[in-house]
């Protein structure tokens, strides 16, 4: 309470209008902070991408500089090979769900066989890369963020620099390349398995002849469908790796910080993946790709 110029005490003014103004002000401030945080994080991702690109170029072009094939292979196994099982499982379910959800509607139009077209296009162009990326963000992205974050907290990153070893060359580059490469590979597996899930469900539940299903699938897809799916998969892989590495490099506050980084990696990755996917889909639609 402040002293009033008239003597006595002045009661702080807390009208409902003031509360509303304060709440709106807090909300605007919070949105502003979030936008600033997003801009800052995007900037950090750009720096990580630039540095990683520089080290990939150096490793390929500069004689005597190791490409770190062993580390790349180890990361490919960790990121990709170990994710195959879960990607297969999820993608089979997606194929089954698509067929069973679409069947009644298509049956009404007497086009039940066209379920193969929908499954093929939805899986190869969209759900194969997207669902695989979402699985990978939880499986590999979180693990990369936790690993790099823990290394930062235990001074391993500092130790690398102290031994004249660049963390981008030593840690980020193999993880980035492994995620991008394996994302492409996993998307191909996801496409095949998703179509297979749809194929089996159509055959066993809807009694669509297998050869008919395969013929329709083949007719529904052309090379642009495969290429747009693969292109998206590569970009998704880059996004997951960049977000995970940035989160890992930004870790502060010990074990709690590592935990927050892993959660944040998954959340940011999913939002970024769906946002970028929507953007790509819109661009492909406009240009008729």
């Amino acid at each position, binding site marked *: 309470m402040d002293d009033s110029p008239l003597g006595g005490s002045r009661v702080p003014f807390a009208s409902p209008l003031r509360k509303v103004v304060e709440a709106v002000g807090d909300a605007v401030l919070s949105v502003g902070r979030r936008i600033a945080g997003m801009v800052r994080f995007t900037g950090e991702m750009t720096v990580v991408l630039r540095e990683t690109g520089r080290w990939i170029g150096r490793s390929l072009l500069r004689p005597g500089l*190791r490409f770190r094939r062993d580390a790349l292979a180890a990361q490919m196994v960790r990121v990709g090979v170990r994710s195959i099982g879960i990607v297969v499982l999820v993608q089979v379910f997606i194929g089954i769900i698509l067929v069973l959800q679409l069947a009644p509607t298509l049956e009404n139009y007497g086009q039940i066989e066209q379920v193969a077209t929908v499954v093929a296009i939805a899986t190869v162009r969209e759900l194969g890369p997207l669902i695989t990326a979402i699985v990978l963000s939880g499986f590999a992205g979180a693990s990369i963020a936790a690993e790099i974050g*823990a*290394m930062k907290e*235990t*001074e*391993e990153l*500092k*130790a*690398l*620099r*102290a*031994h*004249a*070893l*660049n963390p981008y060359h030593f840690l980020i580059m193999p993880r980035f390349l492994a995620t991008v490469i394996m994302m492409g590979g996993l998307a191909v597996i996801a496409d095949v398995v998703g179509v297979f899930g749809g194929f089996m469900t159509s055959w066993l539940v809807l009694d669509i002849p297998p050869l008919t299903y395969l013929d329709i699938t083949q007719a529904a897809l052309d090379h642009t469908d495969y290429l747009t799916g693969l292109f998206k998969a590569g970009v998704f892989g880059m996004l997951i790796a960049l977000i995970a590495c940035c989160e890992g490099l930004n870790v502060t506050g010990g074990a709690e910080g590592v935990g927050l980084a892993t959660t944040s990696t998954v959340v940011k990755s999913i939002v970024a993946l769906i946002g970028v996917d929507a953007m790509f889909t819109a661009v492909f639609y406009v240009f008729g790709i």
Partner: protein
Amino acid sequence: MESDVVISVQEVVKTFPRADGTPARVLDGVTFDVHRGETIVVMGGSGCGKSTLLNCLIGELPVDGGRILYHAARMPSSRDISGMSESELNELRKHFGILFQSGALFNSMSVADNIALPIREHSSVPARLIETIVTLKLEQVRMLEHREKMPAQLSGGQKKRVGLARATALDPEILFYDEPSAGLDPVTSAAIDELIMDLSRKLLVTSVVVTHEMDSAFRIADRMVMLDRGRVLKIGSRAEFEILRDAPPDSLARHEEKLMNQFLNGYGRGPLTDATGTSEFERLITAG
């Protein structure tokens, strides 16, 4: 720069932003020289700037003012670390080794691989010879029987020994130690100190040790630097600091001497502590 000076720290200033945005001077005109072959101990309470100084010395943090000149024997001329590019800094880093407070071993690698890594990355030494060097380095720190273990299987003291072996893998001219005996029991701490002295003698390295463990500091130091609130309070030989430590507090006239006497002896009462028993260091840290 005198010919036997390996590192010359000249008027180094480092600031960090406080919570309110104003700059806090963590290092405020720090000046001292490190001579070839000596072991110099930088000491001071928590928050006095010694870890920041170490980070500036190894090029982990850029300085905001002053210079840090290096003149290693294998370098053609003295160079200011603040003006170095990334590749120049990496070249300089090959001249020194660092033992981190936690050991900072690479957890995904075995003990042997931790030591082999810098050699493998920075030389064209054949794999067989690398094995021999690793064996030699592990023998020096008496950890040979643990060569295939992973860091998670080692105790704190063992991690520091392996960290020390890794720090010496490239036969550096300068060794930096960040709190080498922190978190260790007195016996292990003494063993690490002996190892540091042993390596200094055998490898003829220049050592810069940052610590607030006084027993350890007095065991290993040739010279000592006392920091207080980012400033050098005193630079002197170990003998000079021993005289200061052993003097009765009442016999000391200057405030700085009383302050150092309290710190060196670890007294709970004195100019560093207020009536509530809170030390000046704690007050500085809680004040941000």
